[in-house]
């Protein structure tokens, strides 16, 4: 994807947008611009499908859904912070041949970026519509937390939002309750560990980044990041799907302020989780003893894609009655993947043995970034080990 130069990022790259369809502004998040952009893309056959998140059984259940008709978009409106999904691998595994648009969190956009670099996704065939993200909460943790701290039946929650440092729930009778995320996280609840460590809150690695930070009521704040993103907005405006206006200076300031607060929280959590409270060598050994080599961490990693994995070759076969040699399994994975770890946390989420795999991968990525300047999932550059720069190592 061709990114706009920093010099291009002037005020016209920041807009407020809203849907021109009342049904969408009523049900969509903050103005419904994202939904209307999807409608524009589908109605004009610019894409074959739109990959987005569908509410399943309740607000804690998000299921990726491919929409192929503009009329379906309305069914998927709204935010789902308790659905920590990942779409990078879905696209590379099943939709690589199709022209699609996709709603992405920053970590989704990072994964897609790494997969484009590995030629697993064709960057020309995909529109990435970024959604600002304050983090996600595991569905079971969310329900337990709502019962314990909000003192309400989790099944009564019809909507949730992360805003102004609070996790806010809306109940079936319209009542809203918000509790500071910091307070929840101090008690071991709140966002997933990797989300707490995340420092990319506005997905500038997507074609556009959308959200409510700094927006006026009924409007979506949109940052245009690429030329493709600009064309997308221009097309949606001229097609009559959205209307736009310039954000006020105050709106820009508020957005910057919110983003910086979230980034600082991320930095603080990174230092805490990966450094001051990091597991000791002995604690890691106990973690590796639980490993059953089920490959869940490998299989879920959006970046890890080899059709024939070396780890399944006979020379890596382990005694099935014992955990794998950590160096021969996790060590090999670390050497292959950690430079490109996008801190999506999926490996933690799916590990049956509750091994906090991502903390090691993220820690190494941070070290790698410090040494090489390579930030996984951002820009067109390949990790140095995959580029001509490898001669320097």
């Amino acid at each position, binding site marked *: 994807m061709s990114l706009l130069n920093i010099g291009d990022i002037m005020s016209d790259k920041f807009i407020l947008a809203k849907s021109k369809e009342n049904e969408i502004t009523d049900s969509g998040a903050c103005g419904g611009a994202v939904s209307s952009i999807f409608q524009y893309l589908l109605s004009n056959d610019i894409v074959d499908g739109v990959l987005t998140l569908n509410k*399943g059984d309740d607000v804690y259940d998000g*299921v990726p859904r491919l929409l192929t008709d503009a009329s379906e978009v309305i069914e998927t409106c709204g935010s789902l912070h308790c659905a920590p999904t990942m779409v990078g691998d879905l696209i590379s595994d*099943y939709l690589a041949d199709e022209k699609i648009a996709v709603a992405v969190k920053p970590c989704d956009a990072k994964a897609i970026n790494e997969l484009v670099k590995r030629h697993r996704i064709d960057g020309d065939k995909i529109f990435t519509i970024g959604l600002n993200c304050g983090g996600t909460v595991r569905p079971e943790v969310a329900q337990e937390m709502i019962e314990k701290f909000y003192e309400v039946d989790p099944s009564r929650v019809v909507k949730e939002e992360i805003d102004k440092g609070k996790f806010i729930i809306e109940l079936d009778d319209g009542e809203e309750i918000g509790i500071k995320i910091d307070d929840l996280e101090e008690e071991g609840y709140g966002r997933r560990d990797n989300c707490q460590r995340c420092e990319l809150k506005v997905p500038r690695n997507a074609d556009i980044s959308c959200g409510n930070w700094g927006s006026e009521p009924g409007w979506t704040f949109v940052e245009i990041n690429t030329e493709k993103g600009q064309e997308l907005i221009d097309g949606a405006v001229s097609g009559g799907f959205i209307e736009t206006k310039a954000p006020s200076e105050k709106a820009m300031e508020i957005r910057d302020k919110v983003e910086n607060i979230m980034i600082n929280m991320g930095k603080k959590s990174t230092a805490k989780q990966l450094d001051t409270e990091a597991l000791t060598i002995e604690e890691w050994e106990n973690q590796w003893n639980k490993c*059953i080599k089920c490959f869940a961490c490998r299989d879920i990693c959006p970046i890890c894609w080899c059709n024939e994995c070396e780890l399944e070759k006979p020379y890596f076969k382990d005694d*099935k009655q*014992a955990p794998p040699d950590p160096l021969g399994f996790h060590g090999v994975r670390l050497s292959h993947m950690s430079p490109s770890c996008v801190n999506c946390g999926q490996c933690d*989420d799916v590990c049956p*043995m509750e091994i906090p795999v991502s903390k090691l991968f993220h820690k190494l990525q941070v070290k790698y970034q410090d040494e090489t300047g390579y930030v996984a999932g951002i820009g067109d550059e390949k990790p140095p080990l995959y580029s001509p720069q490898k001669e320097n190592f």
Partner: protein
Amino acid sequence: MLDIKHTICPSCSVGCGLNIVSKDGAVVGTYPYKRHPINEGKNCLNGRDSILQFEDSIEKASFVKNNELEESDNASVIKAIKDQLASIDASDLAIICSGNNTNEELDKIIEFANAYGCEKIGFYGSNFPNFSGELASYDDINKASTVLVIGDIYRENPLLARRVVLSKENGGKLINIDDVEKSITSLNADDFIQFTDDFNDKVASVKDQLDENSVIIVNKLSSKDDFAVIEELSKESNAKLLPVFNAPNTKGAMNRLDSLDCDEIRNIIDDSKVLIVVKDNLLDYLSEDDIKGKSFIVNISNEKNRFAELSDIVLPGKSWAEKEGTFTNCEGLEQSFIISAECDNDNLSEIEIFDELA
């Protein structure tokens, strides 16, 4: 068209949630079902690999001649089964169901057996007898002060082992009894006790370490008598008991049918002229000599295996992803699932097959 739908994992009796990814009518992958309260999106390799059955399965109703399947059609095969059933007495029919059947299928098969007058009906329970006592819940494991595991649940039922991991994080103690020299469960246990021919003594030796805050999990038994020993330990120590099975609906089958061991199944086969086996591979626990040439075998399963070659008729039935129904997991929770993949075939579901045979 890409589609992702919730289902229940068919690989063991824990009852994990699983999302099935299908594209243009074919199952292509799995995706974490994070909303599911039992496993929160975590699935073991067996669970994720459960879709491999779509890669190489029996696709058509078939007659078996000289150990080779000859594809036919549903109507011809159903007629052949009906002809067989019409030629025997009710006492000559035996039906072996399995923990792979849904509760609805089991009810339908029982209804068929009752109408036909067939009394020889049951399923292979892997040496677990019918057990209707109080069961430990998964939350009981999380909160347990001591968990006694008999078998290797870290390897075989990882999403139950996860509960033990959480219990240990809360200060709980893990005792493991097994006949193997080592296993991942034994390596993670605070105490590992290996038994040889002294199972009863070794089980009795841990009695003083168990109380009402303890849970006994058992996933491996060499005989039904061994279960009686464990049940006795549970009663004497007040520890809660959780038998874990290797099929998704063994508990549902146990609630409806007799749990049979190998000898009982051999006897049934010896006494029958027609044997209907529904979603089970008898060679997992019997020898070829136990079944060869003894009965006319109707095998309802899409699994390509040696047992299919030794059968007389094979009807693929439907895979779990192609049908709806309920499974009862090992803690007794009945979970319903919907059709998660609309596959392109004309196979009859197990319920349709028994409707046709009725």
